[in-house]
Structure formats: C-alpha cells, structure tokens
C-alpha cells in the first residue's frame, strides 16, 4: 500500500464551494421556491374548473330534482315546470344501442390484434386506423352517420332515429374498446397462455377461458369509461338522433337525449328551459361520475 500523499484539493479552486449550511437567499434556492410556487398555483388553477362546474351543476341542477323531473315531458315554450323523462330514457337507449354494437366489435377486434395477428400489414393498418379513428372529431362521426344512415333512410325509410344516434356513438366508442381490450390482453403474461396450450387447450378455449378472463378488469374498466364518455356526447347526436318532445316511439324514430336537450335548452331564451338544462346536466353528470367511480372500483379490485 502506498503512503497516502497529503491531501490537496488542488482543483477545488475551479469550483464554487460553499458551506453546507442552507442559504435561503442563494439564487438557486430562490429559484426553487419560485418554481414550486408557480407549480402549485398552476395545480390550483387546474382543479378550479372542476370545483366550479360541479358547484354550479349541483346548485342550479340539484335544487330542481323532483319526481316530476323524471316522469314528465319537457314543457311547451312559455310554460313552466315539466321534466326530462323522455331524455333520460333516450340517453339510456341510445347508449345501450351504441354499447351493443361497439363492445362485441371492439372486444373481437382487440382479440384479433392481440391474440391472432402476428404484426402483418393488416394488423398494423388496423391498429394505425384505430388510432386515427380515436382522433376523429366526434362531430365528424355525426356527419358520417348522417351521410350513410340518415339521408339514405336505410332503416324502414326513417331518417333521423335513435338507431342512427346509437351507431354514431358506437363509432366513437369503438377505438376505445379496441384499445383497452388490446392493451388488457397484452398485460396477460405469456406463461399463462403457454400453460393452457400445454394442457392441450385449443386457441379458442385459451382465449375464452384463460386470456380474456384474466384481462377482465382492465377491459371492463375501459369499457365502462367508454360508455360514460358516449353517454355525454352531443355532437354526433344533433343530426342523427335529433330531438323529440315526446316519449320515445321506438328505435327507428327521432329521440330526445339529455345531452341534446341541454344544448337545445341552454340556448333558448326561456327560464323554464334553461332550468331543465341545468337539471339534465345534474342527472347526466351524476350518472357519468358514478360510472367513473365504478370503473375506478373495478380497477382497484385486482390491485388488492
């Protein structure tokens, strides 16, 4: 072992060396404080809209909640009172139609991308197309269904209909369902599939009995969120499902939905209609928040 030479910090002159003590007036510490302050202000601004929107929806809409709201039709122009019963049923119906289309198609497409495709051009095209479709503005989905379903009157000569609205919403849901299915299935460990093949299960059995159930949680979470999203969509419904002041006649007739009701009634210069817009907002927001909490709850189940 060599003798340790006397310790010389010959190079320290080239560096700033300060005492170890914390100096709050140092530029870097002041800058730190400044940025922390800015970030906290930004975070406060970011949560402010939610607080304010929820506050007003609860205040303005919550006080109008009554039995009549759920059981009555909207009032005629100039009249008081009334309810949004038809719009609530309409939203449920249109969202149901959309789910019945988008969930099977989306889950099937997701299974194909994750389990059956081996990265060929077709799978690449589908997953690229899926990302593109996810970015298509919702109003364009409305234009598409207007052009293909409404103006062509494919459904028994009917133009505007609940069905058309449901299809438009399904177009919006589809990319989300495919993506969550695909990503959920990708999370399933490969060993699980091998295990199933190892005992001689066919691919179909493996997918249906092993892979898909293992990915249930992320898929269910994503699907619930997609449904909640669709229930609040307005743009694709304005000229597909249109609106109706009456109780729904069937899936091939125009139908009222809460979101379109809010839009129509918000811009009317009548107090009663404005109030119903707030009440519908309250009901819609509560439904959507409940769905979000449900999704969170599903997601948490497996984390235990």
């Amino acid at each position, binding site marked *: *072992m*060599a*003798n*340790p*030479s006397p*310790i*010389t*910090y*010959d*190079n*320290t002159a*080239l*560096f*700033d*060396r*300060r*005492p*170890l*003590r*914390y*100096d709050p007036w140092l530029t*870097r*510490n002041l800058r730190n404080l400044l940025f922390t302050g800015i970030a906290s202000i930004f975070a406060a601004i970011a949560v402010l809209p939610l607080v304010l929107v929820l506050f007003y929806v609860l205040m303005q809409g919550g006080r109008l909640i009554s039995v009549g709201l759920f059981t009555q039709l909207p009032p005629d122009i100039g009249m008081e009172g009334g309810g949004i019963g038809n719009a609530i049923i309409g939203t449920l119906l249109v969202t149901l139609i959309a789910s019945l289309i988008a969930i099977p198609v989306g889950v099937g497409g997701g299974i194909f991308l994750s389990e059956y495709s081996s990265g060929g051009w077709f799978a690449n095209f589908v997953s690229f197309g899926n990302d593109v479709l996810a970015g298509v503005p919702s109003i364009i989905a409305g234009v598409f269904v207007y052009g293909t379903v409404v103006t062509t009157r494919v459904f028994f000569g009917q133009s505007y209909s609940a069905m058309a609205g449901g299809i438009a919403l399904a177009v919006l849901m589809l990319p989300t369902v495919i993506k969550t299915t695909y990503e959920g299935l990708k999370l399933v460990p490969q060993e699980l599939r091998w295990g199933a093949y190892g005992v001689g299960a066919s691919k179909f059995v493996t997918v249906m009995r092993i892979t898909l159930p293992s990915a249930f949680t992320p898929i269910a979470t994503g699907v619930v969120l997609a449904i909640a999203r669709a229930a609040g969509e307005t743009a694709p419904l304005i000229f597909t499902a249109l609106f109706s002041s009456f109780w729904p006649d069937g899936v091939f007739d125009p139908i009222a939905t809460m979101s379109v009701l809010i839009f129509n009634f918000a811009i009317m210069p009548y107090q009663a209609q404005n109030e119903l817009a707030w009440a519908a907002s309250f009901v819609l927001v509560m439904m959507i928040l409940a769905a979000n909490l449900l999704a969170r709850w599903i997601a948490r189940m497996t984390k235990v």
Partner: protein
Amino acid sequence: MTSSSHSSQSADSSKGDACMSLQNVTISYGKFEAVKNVFMDIPRGRVTAFIGPSGCGKSTVLRGLNRMNDLIPGCKLKGRVVFDGHDLYDPKVDPVEVRRRIGMVFQKPNPFPKSIYENIAFGARINGFKGDMDELVERSLRKAAVWDECKDKLRESGFALSGGQQQRLCIARAIATEPEVILMDEPCSALDPISTLKIEETMHELKRSYTIIIVTHNMQQAVRVADQTAFFNAEAVEGGTGKVGYLVEFNDTERIFNAPGQQATQDYVSGRFG
C-alpha cells in the same frame, strides 16, 4: 507499513482524521428498520469498502452519507452523520450542497438523456466550474477509462453506449465535479474485467485527493482497492418485519480478510456463509 495499520476503530476517531463519522445511525423505510446502530469513522484520503450479504443495508447506508435517501418517501435516518464538522442531517444543512461535495456512482448506470459531452459538463457547470470544459470532459473520461470509446461520439446520446460504457460515463460524471468524497455502489457490477481493472486503477489515483467509499460483492476487488473494509450483516429480530442490518466489523482490509475479529466475518470472507 502504513501509519494506520495499527489503528483500531476507536483509535481512528480519536486521531480526528476521519472524513465522515457515523454516530449511532439507524435508517428505516417507514416502520421497517433496514440498518441499526452503525458507528464508524471513515478515514480521509482512503478507500473504504462495504461488504456483506445482499439486503444487509450497504446501499442504504451509502445513500445515507449524501442524503440520497431524502428522495425515497418514508426513509428516515436517526443518529448523526458528521462531515466537515457538520451533522449532515441538521435541518440547517442544504442537501444539495452536501451532494455537491459528496458525489455518487450508482449500482445501475443512469446517464442523463443528453449527449455524452453534456452528461459530464452538466454536473461540472452546476457546480460552478470555471475552467476549460473540453479539457475537463476529456480528463474525466480518461480517468474513467472510457475516453477511447467515447472520443468520436461526444455529441451523441449517452444511451448510445453499452451498459458497461454507460457506467464508466457515470463514473466520469461523478469524477468531473471533483467532490471531496465519492460514493460508489457496486460500480463495476456491469463491467468486464479489463474495464474493472481500469476503474480500480482510477480509484487508486483518486484516493490521493479524495475519499472513496465503495460497495462491492467482489472480495478480490475489496482486497485490491480498499484500505479499510466494513462488513455488514443482517439478522432477523423478534417482532421485526424483516432482517435488520448492522455493522459487524470495520477495520483494515488486511485484518478483515486475514484475521477478522468475528466469526461471521470469517465465514463470509472465506465463502462459508449461508
């Protein structure tokens, strides 16, 4: 013979050439005490090695020496770590200042998402380096035995290097800021034997001006580079949630490997551990 060969643990602290002094240090993650009651005086201008079985808290203690544990939520240190006359855990102490004077090389290579040149210059610049940056970069890379591999791609990303090269880049980065103490957590675990030897040469070089503390699982490496060696061990305690680490023995490397004071040390260094 070196002047310290006769010194024992207590003699070291009385001599007062200790660079860092740990006084009854206990580090816990949340409720779990990872290492307990460590006393040691780390001499200045020497290489000190920490050895011991996996999970006994070597990295934990090492991170405790430059307040790296501050970054881990829930990690608490009790006791005193004295450096340069200050308790590093005094609330008045600025952890940033501490890390500027006590540098660190990590177990996993972690180059910044910047060019190789910037990886080195970044640390130097924030430490207020006033000299010739090009020269510093070259000197640091040479000392870390990676200059030849890097000299033609200084402007390329640090990620464009192999794992071992990245690690040497990180060593160069730590050397470049010329801290008084360099902490190294298994710096050679991702390196081939040639690079490892180069790094060890660098350590011999560096200890003229710096104090080095190195965690290693490689006994030969500890023998080759370290003047002093600390052996840590872990044992289960009643009512505890896991194994609690503690310092078994801290002495001259020669003594630890040839005539350890404890049976556990003897077992470990002779590979009869288990």
